[in-house]
């Protein structure tokens, strides 16, 4: 959120605005990224994350704001600076891989070097090097059309890093792969990025991908930044209802802060139908007594009990419980609200059974609505 944060910033985006017709795809966002770090722009489709990436790449012109990489001004509306994409020294991996079908893998990867008039011998060496790094050395002579999705993905990455760019951009590179391959490629991409040490910006709508790969995550919605933070912080301390709902699964109940007991701690009052309870919770940034807030509790932070043991009393009725192998997915009706709970897989609950819920106060968080 704060563009002037401490530490050297390799990429700096300030006040970026980009509209398509009357619609603001990106609405005044600023962020930075330290050298060598892996930053993810996370959000649903249409949130402006890809547009932001395109602006950094120079494939879109800005409507307002500026973009700097390594201290050099790449785009600035105020100063009328626009560096064409080919002068930016940025590598990019596209969603469709964009491997040129009329060239072999080696030719695809050699292309950026040939454009830079690198000597033939050096090209061969560097192409072989990145193909080895991406595990494609045996496929160098294949045509791009003869590769599988995962192999095309690697080839696209090889082509993007072969000229040692100053910045690496990923536009949802894994979204066209099947689940198993996607999980393997997450680790693989991250390993290669670490090995090469390139500062990277990654765009995805997949929160698991963002959590696994990133040093820092920016959650976006409707062209604006919702929260910036590391994977743990984003998951454990979502800034608002939107982030809490988007990252992982959460039980979200609207309420009001009735008491602040200690810094960052307090009580929230929840009214649901006839029920009204006061629950101890952690308080999100800026929440004070009397403010309306949303209680966010992850399903794994709720325990289902057969006996009443703790106050306050949350007594409900099991709607259903589904065995998922490594856990039991339960729904418990309390007043008008249906709690999502993850229970131990060896537990069994019958629909209609009366149960009690215990919330883990450490992981019960009130956030801004």
């Amino acid at each position, binding site marked *: 959120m704060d563009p002037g944060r401490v530490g050297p910033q390799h990429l700096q985006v300030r006040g970026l605005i980009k509209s398509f017709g009357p619609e603001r795809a990106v609405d005044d966002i600023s962020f930075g990224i330290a050298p060598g770090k892996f930053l993810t722009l996370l959000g649903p489709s249409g949130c402006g994350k890809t547009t932001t990436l395109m602006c950094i*790449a*120079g*494939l879109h012109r800005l409507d307002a704001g500026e973009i700097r*990489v*390594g*201290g*050099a*001004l*790449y785009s600035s509306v105020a*100063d*009328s*600076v*626009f*560096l*064409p*994409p*080919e*002068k*930016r*020294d*940025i*590598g*990019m991996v*596209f*969603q*469709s891989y*964009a491997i*040129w*079908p*009329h060239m072999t893998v080696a030719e695809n990867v050699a*292309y*950026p070097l040939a*454009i*830079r008039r690198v000597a033939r011998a050096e090209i061969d060496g560097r192409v072989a090097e990145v193909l080895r790094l991406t595990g494609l050395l045996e496929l160098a002579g294949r045509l791009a059309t003869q590769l599988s999705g995962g192999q095309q993905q690697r080839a*696209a990455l090889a*082509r*993007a890093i072969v*000229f*040692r*760019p*100053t910045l690496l951009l990923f536009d949802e590179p894994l979204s066209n792969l099947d689940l198993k391959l996607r999980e393997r490629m997450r680790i693989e991409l991250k390993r290669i990025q670490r090995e090469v040490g*390139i500062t990277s910006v990654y765009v995805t709508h997949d929160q698991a991908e963002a959590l696994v790969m990133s040093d820092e995550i920016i959650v976006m919605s409707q062209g604006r930044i919702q929260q910036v933070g590391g994977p743990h912080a984003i998951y454990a301390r979502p800034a608002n209802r939107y982030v809490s709902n988007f990252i992982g699964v959460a039980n979200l109940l609207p309420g009001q802060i009735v008491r602040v007991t200690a810094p960052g701690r307090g009580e929230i009052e929840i009214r649901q139908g006839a029920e009204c309870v006061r629950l101890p919770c952690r308080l999100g940034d800026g929440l004070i007594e009397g403010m309306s807030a949303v209680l966010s509790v992850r399903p794994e932070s709720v325990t289902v009990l057969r006996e009443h043991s703790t106050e306050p009393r949350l007594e409900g009725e099991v709607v259903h419980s589904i065995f998922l192998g490594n856990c039991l997915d339960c729904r418990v009706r309390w007043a008008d609200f249906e709690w999502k709970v993850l229970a131990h897989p060896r537990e069994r609950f019958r629909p209609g059974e009366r149960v009690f819920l215990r919330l883990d106060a450490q992981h019960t968080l009130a956030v801004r609505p």
Partner: protein
Amino acid sequence: MAEAVQVGRAPAVGRWRSRARSLLTQESLVTLLASLVVAVAVLLPLATLIVSSFRVLDEAGFDTRWGLDNYRAMVDDRIIGKAFVNTLVISTGATLLATLLGVSLAWINARSNCPAREQLEPFNLIPFFLSPFVGAIAWHNLAAPRTGLLNALARDALGVPGHVLNVDNIYGIIWVTGIFFTPLVYLFVVGSLRRMDPALEDSARTTGAGLLRTTLTVTLPLVAPAILSGAIIVFVTSAGEFGVPFKLGAPYGWETLTTQIFSKAVGDEANHYMGATMSMALGALTAVFVWIQQRVLAPRAFTTVTGKGFRPNVVDLGRWRWLALAYNLAFVLIAVVLPIFCLVVVSLHPVWEGRIIPRDLTLWNYQKVLFFWRPDAIRSATNGIGNSFVLAFAGASIAMTLALVVSYMIHRTKGFGARVLEVLCVVPIGFPGIVIAMGVLVTYIKTPIYATLWILLVGYITRFFPYGQRNVSSVMLAVSEELDQSSRLSGASWLTTLRRITIPLLKPGIFAGWVLLFIIFLRELSISIILYTAGTETLSVGVYYLANFENEPLTAALSVAQTVALLVCVVVFRRVAGREALTA
């Protein structure tokens, strides 16, 4: 890590210059230039045509003044009035005939188990590539009352007195036009039928509807926009057709708007301003129909068409499939085999009187039209061969270059300019060649390019480059923009990307479009006939010369030569282009 390019903060004074530099990229320069060329090429002739139609030539034929006299004269003139009615009748008749034949043949090929339909398909399309003018010459030799081969056969073999067939009238024009434009309907409908999701019909069948009911309530309504599209294209193409009415109508008192425009453009009675006025009338008629087709029908023709490769439902015709085969063979016989056979036969006789005389057969006519230079009329024909190949080669190359840049603009730079260009690319399709040619004539007649091949080139490209553009666009839509973008990010400039990535990927579309334009230009008549002068005749103008001033066998010889050249191109075209490449 490579060193980042240092741009730094632009000082206030340099700000304007840096803004100018950021606008003056390779991309913006080339695309601006292309848009200007297209805008001038398309709008200037039409604007001049409109202006000219309000210029009135005085009695002496030297001076002009402003006025509505041309329009008044056009309304009052009995011949023009009749020509207008004839044009409407011919277009309507040809449209009905072509639609009937096109839809039935398309259904047989796409949806029935008619034998050998794979092999017949290319033959159904052949008339699309040949010259309708040559078709009219062929049918004249087949079914003229006295010298027609079929009439002579009927007299000799069956003893029928007089003649059975006569194509030298408005019905003959409808017949030949309808047959030659059948592939236009066929292409629209066969594409729509093939790409329709079979589940749409299957679900109707599962609700209990029979085959006939499904065809009438589901299939036909879904194909209707394609049928109407094809019908409208046939209507406007027929209205703008010059060669067929010139051969079969004009000499026998059946004038059309095109033959009338021609008489005002060249010859002793020439009055370009009057010609422009009549072109306005013809252009207004066709533009309205094409506008309806492009804006209302064409988008709908694709709503059920997902572009996925479906395996269409095939109807088992049982024993009736042999009838379907006979029907399709009859079409190929009438549209392709008989005309070409007849032309060959006629071309081998020194004189044609409706009878095959085996001991007279000679190749002398070919020698004369292809290599013999002396008599002036024949010389025009021989000139035309060289000119046409030069025009077709240069025209197709220039038009495809333009088409490439324009398609790129429309699909890759999505600004206001792209939308304007898209509209500009449809405009020439709305006007018959003869109308565009009149516009080009009045625009450039006082410039040095008049009386050179350049004015023909301008006319050809203006009228036909949208066809090439559509070929490139269809491929460009299938090629992801990310392929270009990743080249830019790899460090390649716009031009380098175009040269090394975009063009190689679009090669099939570019080449298919090139061959299609080459074919169109090689047979082009209605633009050439307005714009040629002595020395710049084309192949089709040569055929016109021979038809007008020499005998039928010489005409037939050159016609056969043109047909052979076109057929060779068709074979090449089928090698390089997919089935769908033709649907312009």
